[in-house]
């Protein structure tokens, strides 16, 4: 019989539909409600920053992989997601070139220099964001302003301002505002509902599970209540929702076991409350998740899953 040039590989010989590219694409799709809401509120400001971030991320990844002699991976949507997320955690008043610096840090250093997607220890977008906060503190001139007032009267103060102090408590936005739509803070904080719609899509697609977001949000809620804060306000205001569903659940930088994910979520939740109440509210979610990222390898090492039929877990 004629030689048919048959493919010989190890089983299985059929594969599921999910690829890294489809997973990342789904994350980008899940962000659409939030992007739309931010465009409605901040218009051109949001558009410019989002476009600048995504374009920079793509260009940066392409150049870095070329320089490092690696296969191009532009088609996997990972750069798109990093760009979108970074633009979303920044307020609309941030100039676009400043967003671009953050993206370059995120993609070039945190992702590609660490070895590419999969090897990076930290969530690239959050690391880029925190780098910007630190740089802005060191180099005074650039204010990463969460200014009162603002763009065309649309923007109001970040709701986080009202967590501490309480002098302004009469001015703080209501729960329904925060949940449905509110123009304070970062692009991605305009609407909790939009975040939840996207999150529901990711849960439905099986790309994330409830373990991480539920443990973060639950911990923030309970701990705030214990410490005498308004728990509902704490979870609705700022980046808790966006961070819990879209950042802390990052495939690469979150723990691999369900128990590890719950511990990681609780740790992040505790850190969010502590940092918000006793340090600075701005960036509390980002700092907390990055610390969680740093603990992830340890959680993966020490937590073993109880094997099928085993009496206790083997490590």
């Amino acid at each position, binding site marked *: 019989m004629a030689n048919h040039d*048959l493919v010989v590989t190890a*089983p299985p*010989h*059929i594969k599921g539909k999910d690829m*890294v590219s489809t997973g990342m694409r789904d994350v980008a799709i899940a962000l659409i409600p939030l992007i739309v809401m931010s465009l409605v509120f901040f218009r051109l400001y949001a558009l410019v920053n989002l476009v600048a971030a995504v374009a920079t991320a793509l260009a940066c990844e392409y150049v870095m992989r070329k320089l490092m002699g690696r296969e191009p*991976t532009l088609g996997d949507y990972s750069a798109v997601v990093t760009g979108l997320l970074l633009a979303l955690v920044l307020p609309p008043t941030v100039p676009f070139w400043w967003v671009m610096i953050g993206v370059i840090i995120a993609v070039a250093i945190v992702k590609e220099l660490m070895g590419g997607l*999969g090897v990076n220890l930290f969530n690239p977008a959050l690391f880029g964001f925190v780098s910007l906060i630190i740089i802005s503190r060191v180099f005074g001139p650039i204010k990463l302003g969460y200014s009162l007032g603002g763009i065309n009267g649309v923007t109001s103060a970040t709701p986080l301002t009202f967590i501490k102090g309480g002098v302004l408590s009469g001015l703080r936005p209501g729960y329904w505002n925060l949940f449905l739509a509110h123009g304070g803070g970062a692009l991605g904080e305009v609407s909790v509902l939009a975040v939840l719609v996207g999150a529901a899509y990711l849960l439905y697609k099986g790309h994330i599970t409830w373990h991480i977001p539920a443990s973060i949000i639950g911990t923030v809620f309970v701990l705030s209540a214990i410490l005498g804060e308004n728990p509902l306000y704490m979870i609705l205001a700022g980046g808790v929702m966006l961070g819990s569903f879209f950042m802390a659940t990052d495939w690469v930088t979150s723990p691999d076991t369900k128990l590890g994910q719950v511990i990681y979520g609780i740790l992040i939740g505790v850190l969010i409350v502590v940092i918000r109440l006793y340090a600075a509210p701005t960036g509390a979610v980002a700092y907390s998740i990055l610390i969680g990222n740093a603990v992830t390898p340890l959680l993966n090492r020490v937590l073993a*899953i109880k*094997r*099928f039929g085993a009496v206790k877990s083997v490590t």
Partner: protein
Amino acid sequence: MELKTFRGGIHPPYQKEATAANWTEDISLPAEVVIPMQQHVGAPNSPTVNVGDRVDAGQKIGSSEAFISAPVHASVSGTVKAIEGRSNFTGAQVQSVVIEVDPSQPPKWAEKKDTGSLSAEQIRDVAKEAGLVGLGGAAFPTFVKLSPPADKRIDTVIINGCECEPFLTCDHRLMLERADDLIGGLKLMMRAVGADKGIIGVEANKMDAADALTAKLGGDSSIEVVPLEVKYPEGAEKMLIDAVTGRRVPPGKLPSEVGVLVQNVQTAVALHDAASTGKPVIDRVITVTGRGIKEPKNVLVKVGTPISHVIDQCGGFAGTPGKVIMGGPMTGWAQKDLSAAVVKGTSGILVLGKDEVDYGAERQCVGCDKCIDACPMFLMPNFIVKYTKRGKYDEANRFGAQDCFECGCCAYVCPSRISHVAYVRKAKAELAAAEKK
């Protein structure tokens, strides 16, 4: 009613429609058959015939003194043409008896005798003499499984009628076409191990078979047909026992540990054939299917028939084949050519088209954890791969390399297209080599 099942697993497209509804067909005999001396788990046989000998269908042509082994028989009447090494379906060289097939084959094993009086010991002898092995693919000698250690009491025999591998329908057809022999075989197994309870586990996509079996059983309360959720690998031994009885076999242990014996549908049918007619395992039903086959169907094939002959008998290839797989798509063996012979453990021949075998290149693990969620053994396949890549096999084993039975769920769900099974095999081989030192 919620169907019984296990935790983990996957839902691949089942693609059984092409062959599930059609009666099993006979195919013509090939010009020669190639009978490997090893078709089972255990010690290989030595040939008991010489080149030039005339052999009769059913005549024993290879045997071994070892406990864990199963003899092989001539599947046709003919003349021994050669005794030499031939590549088997895994690509390994195995000593094989090549028989030139006689043009006329006298009919045999037509007469059925009652099996009701056979003792446990006699049933084990029948299984041993017939060269019976697990026909679901594992090919473990059946009489060994029918001889559990004295300190283990078996109370339940489970027939695996799940056929959870996509594409395959040969067990489904046997449950429909040979329900009486299947039930007869199960009763023999129950008697051999002294079990009071028999269960036939059938995935819910084969309710016609489940209903047919229930009808045949009538009022027999010792045997129960249990429908199971359609999920891969429902038919894996440990998963099936868990789903049906709720008992979990501990790591590294056998089903006898929890008082259960599991056998495949075709094994039960073959045991009944051997006991009632004396016919050894010389043929079996296999599913020939896939987009690359012109006429997909279930066929009764003589052991030793080359793949190329079976494919010819099913109309040949449709288009250019990309992959020819011996067995199912999840655990089968990809063939480099079509010379390997059908053996006792062959459940199917699957031909995938050229466009179905481009899976995309393997890339770095992105830590999505989908492999961990899919693993029915609760292992951590991503870490097994990570440490195997680094040559740290003990670490790989810490995450479960040796507990893995290679169902392939992890590799199926992997978005990075990592071939976990290949890494697990490497880790197992290295661990076994290290143990020998």
